């Protein structure tokens, strides 16, 4: 895997996909299936969460098994703010972004001292700690989570309308992906990819590796927090299961499925996993068998994820 370069072809595909996604609510309404607008919002939110994980995992090379902690932190932040009467979506998003980022900064500062498997495990441990804390804090709803009444408006736009909310989510996802693309092509992105490739060498070249990794970790956590806040308003609930380790695992699976270190890997993985779930559920109650087999097939025959299947072989790779 070289340094990330987004090809014109891939950019064109992304723009085409964006146009298609813009038309989706209209199509769904025309087909009398408004439900799918709400479902699509959910998919896009998970796409954002998975993409943020891809930033640490694919670009930074840090296998974080605790990303759900930041996802959940954003959700709880949104729910708490809603409870406190904050009624402006941008404020909620910003707060969730910041709070999750701060949490990631703290967890990262402690976890990034370890390497390899131990890093995987310590991030997992911190996420579990966050999970049990959230469940136990009085007034945070315990196992039931914190419900949100309604969605805060965005500059006068009522997001309670599923279509408006969908467009808000789509805009945020597109903006985030654009930011990730800039990041990957900026000096910072090159440095974290260099660290992924050869940490000691980067250190020997004079880069303060720890600081770069920590910044990347915190930034990714912040974006996951944004996704969490969106999910909380989408579903009207900040649920502790958002912080559970299975959620971290699901996000990991999305990224690996889509393509590690590919800008759209997270999006692709989230869409594939959630749509496959939705389709399989309609076909058979034992849909998990199908999903499990599909994932195994990806591991054995598409090691670069689905994005890897599309990518053309480049240069002398």
């Amino acid at each position: 895997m070289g340094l990330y370069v987004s090809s014109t072809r891939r950019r064109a595909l992304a723009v085409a996909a964006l146009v298609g996604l813009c038309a989706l609510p209209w199509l769904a309404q025309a087909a009398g299936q408004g439900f799918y607008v709400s479902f699509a919002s959910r998919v896009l939110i998970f796409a954002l969460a998975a993409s943020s994980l891809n930033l640490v995992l694919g670009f930074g090379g840090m296998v974080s098994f605790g990303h759900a902690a930041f996802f959940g932190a954003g959700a709880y932040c949104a729910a708490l703010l809603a409870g406190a009467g904050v009624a402006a979506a941008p404020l909620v998003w910003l707060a969730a972004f910041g709070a999750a980022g701060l949490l990631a900064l703290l967890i990262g500062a402690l976890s990034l001292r370890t390497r390899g498997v131990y890093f995987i495990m310590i991030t997992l441990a911190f996420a579990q700690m966050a999970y049990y804390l959230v469940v136990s804090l009085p007034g945070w709803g315990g196992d039931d989570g914190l419900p949100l009444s309604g969605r805060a408006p965005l500059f006068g736009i009522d997001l309670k309308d599923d279509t408006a909310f969908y467009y808000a989510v789509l805009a945020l996802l597109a903006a985030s992906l654009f930011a990730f693309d800039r990041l990957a092509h900026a000096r910072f992105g090159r440095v974290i990819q260099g660290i992924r490739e050869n940490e000691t060498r980067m250190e020997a070249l004079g880069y303060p590796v720890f600081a770069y990794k920590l910044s990347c970790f915190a930034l990714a956590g912040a974006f996951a927090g944004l996704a969490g806040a969106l999910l909380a308003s989408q579903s009207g609930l900040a649920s502790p299961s958002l912080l559970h380790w299975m959620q971290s695992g699901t996000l990991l699976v999305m990224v690996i499925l889509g393509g590690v270190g590919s800008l759209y890997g997270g999006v692709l993985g989230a869409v594939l996993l959630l749509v496959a779930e939705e389709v399989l559920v309609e076909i058979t109650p034992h849909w998990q068998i199908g999903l499990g087999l599909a994932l195994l097939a990806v591991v054995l025959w598409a090691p670069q994820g689905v994005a890897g299947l599309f990518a053309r072989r480049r240069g002398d790779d």
Partner: protein
Amino acid sequence: MTERAAPPSSPLLDVCDVGKHFGGVYALNGATLAVEAGEVHALIGPNGAGKTTLIHTLSGALRADAGRIRFAGQEVGGRAMHERAALGLARSYQITNVFARLSVLDNVTLAVQARTRDWGTSFRFWRPFARDTAIVEEARALLERVGLGALAGRRAGNLSHGEQRCLEVALALGTRPRLLLLDEPMAGMGPEESARMVELVERLARQVTLLLVEHDMDAVFRLADRISVLVGGRVIASGLPDEIRADAEVRRAYLGDEA
């Protein structure tokens, strides 16, 4: 960069009584060494003498247990590897340690980009690197200098061994160090490749102070201004090549078997 003026007499690198042990085994046992600015200083010694450990200790990959290391008038013994590198203390690796999956050019741009004193910080999240044309130009120029100009687009892992050794040196040079620790640059090379490397090092010697660890005695005596001999974790002699060649203790401990 803050550069406190060092008295003219003080060496660029001043290593004093450095010790390092692993478990109960001493790899370095009071090693003392001085590298003057501008010189090519060779470090020789039999296998297991502690040469690589010393390089690791100087670069910051390992922390010394005892002694002090001054570089450019500053105590650096407690500093992290990246801090020492930022001060101008660069190293190459004995076992090739490049970014195998990146292109040759990307390898070197990462090294050049590391020089924050010239380019500013790399905590830049938004501005595309593509606009930093000066960095890329410098990297290309550097590749020309080490003879890899034609291979800039190749994946580093696909280079031949000799080419990778050259890239290794280019990476270290990219940071424009004041002192370059070259750990066996000729390791594993054939005679032809070695000859080219010797030429490269000769050219380098005009621009940067070198501390050279090498087994190839012909190369050492051809390149070095001064030589230190490390035996059993301790520098037993330090001087001009002729003095070293004549030193009885060195002959007994080291050259004796070979010469």
